[in-house]
């Protein structure tokens, strides 16, 4: 199992195009990948399947929130580092 945390800094968070890029990237790996976050108001913990667009969207990750990406499987290392890179580069937004 491989897990890493990162703050989402792009403008719209994990929504719209960034969310779809995230899911498309996740779908490239055989590992099970989950995304975790905490609701900033209620402090409630939420998780979603990183390969599900509907799941990722309903996580409600906005700009400035921290997420944890956890992968389990043969390519877990690559999966986590690729998704981290995507978030780090603000999904190629300007």
């Amino acid at each position, binding site marked *: 199992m491989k897990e890493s945390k990162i703050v989402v800094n792009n403008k719209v968070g994990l929504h719209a195009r960034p969310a*779809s890029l995230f899911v498309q990237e996740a779908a490239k790996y055989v590992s099970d990948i989950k995304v975790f976050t905490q609701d900033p108001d209620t402090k409630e913990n939420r998780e979603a*399947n990183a390969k599900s*667009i*509907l799941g990722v*969207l*309903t996580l409600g990750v906005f700009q400035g929130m921290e997420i944890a990406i956890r992968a389990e499987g043969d390519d877990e290392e690559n999966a986590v580092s690729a998704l981290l890179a995507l978030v780090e580069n603000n999904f190629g937004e300007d």
Partner: protein
Amino acid sequence: MKHLAGIPASRGICISPVFQFVRQEIIVEEVCVDDPKAEINRLDQAICTAKDQIFLIYQKALKEASKADAEIFQAHRMILEDPELLAEVKKKIENQKVCAESAMQSTAQTFSDMMAGMKDEYFAARAADILDVGNRVLRILLGIAETPSADLKEASVIVADDLTPSDTVMLDKSLVVGFCTARGSATSHTAILARGLGIPAVSGAGEEVLKISNKTTLILDGTKGNVIVDPDEDTINQFQQRIKTAHIIHEAAKKHAHEPAITTDGVNVEVVSNIGNVEGARSALENGAEGVGLLRTEFLYLERNSLPTEEEQYQAYRAILDVFGDLPVILRTLDVGGDKEIPYMGLEEELNSFLGLRALRLCLVRPDIFKPQLRAALRAGVDRNLKLMFPMVAIASEVRAARKVLDECIKELIEEGQPFAEEIEIGIMVEIPSAALVADQLAKEVDFFSIGTNDLSQYTMAADRTNSKVAELSDAFFPAVLRLVRDVIKAAHAEGKWVGMCGELAGEPLAAPILLGLGLDEFSMSPPMVPVLKQILRGLSATEMKALAEQTLQLETPKEIRDFVKQKVPFIAELVG
């Protein structure tokens, strides 16, 4: 043989069989199944077909519409591939032993409700997408055609209650020769589409047209707004002759479409087009338009569930500007109000939305809508000949307020180091009588005017042209309207500013001599009208038309004015039949 009357929505005549455009309802019954495995197989196959359909639409949208439209279908594909959604549907089939239809429908509804419950316009849009995708799979499972036009196999007149952009995007345009709608108006989507395609359309023809059976022959006279159902042979021959004459004139004009429109006394008149997307842009160029006099931007906002982003708009505008290279393109900022169904904007319903908070009035109080559009336009205009135009201006201070927002956007772009169009002409639509009356004051605030005769006529005559009982009164040929046009041109020229016209009057053959005589600098019309209008202008003398224009303004009725022009310029009389 039967005559029906409607509102003329797009010029031209056609004789063709009827194709009734009827939407089929999706009805799902909850059926228990013995073999859940077989049911899941059915589901998988349906999803496969749905993916293929979406892929085809995606490619079509990429080619015809904007990238933004295409991305919607991209999102649809991702929903179809969503592991959570699919697992849920399959679980329902296995555990509850219900049919694929029922499982799909209820699951799509659950996920959609979940999204809608998040009270955010972005999620509301996804909620609609999920239902849309669910319905696509249901139609396949139930054996319902993908669109009501799937059976359209021969050239036909499309008859419908009214048509939306999503209805028409899937229509095979090469098989559509005309539109006839029961409801709708001269300004509805169907009318604009038909004018862009250069085919006739009659709207508001009444419920009766929906009862005409498929393949019945129909004569559609979009110039006059007449529909003849099941015509006799004499009538058909008579109309065929008219179609032939019109065809000959059009073909002759098309040969010279790419030459300038220079009058017999050497005035070079600018002839440009009204467009609303890339398709229109290409058609405008093909028809010899020397640029765009009106780029409608509403297409970016309708039929969706959230505001288009600045980036989306930038891409869409840039794609259109790229078609025209150095030729001028006048972009009109958003022109909507409470009458348009744009749920995500949260517009209040108004008692009289045409006199309400619409167009520039709305944009000035909604910087969240206005600024992204202005920024996108400014950025898209780099190295292109872009001009901006504000709709629905009544008083000079509105222009100053709009300029202030524009200046803010420019300042932001400079701070961000983004390239943008630095020298840009700013104009306004003159479509409210008050603006026409103080045109001398407004001319000091802008670089150009574009007269919108459709609204100017409605507002001047206080007659709604979509109301067939008073539509006749909103005719732009009334001297009251033409005199305002004259005064606007005079006031602008006195300030050294130029005047265009993007209302339907600009593409009206019988109006050309009057408008030329009044000194109009630029004529903007739907692309298919460009060659004919150019040809007409080439046959006229600007100096001689001055006197004719003044004389027409002394007449009393539109009919008198039209007859007078026909008599003085017989070659146009022949042309309009």
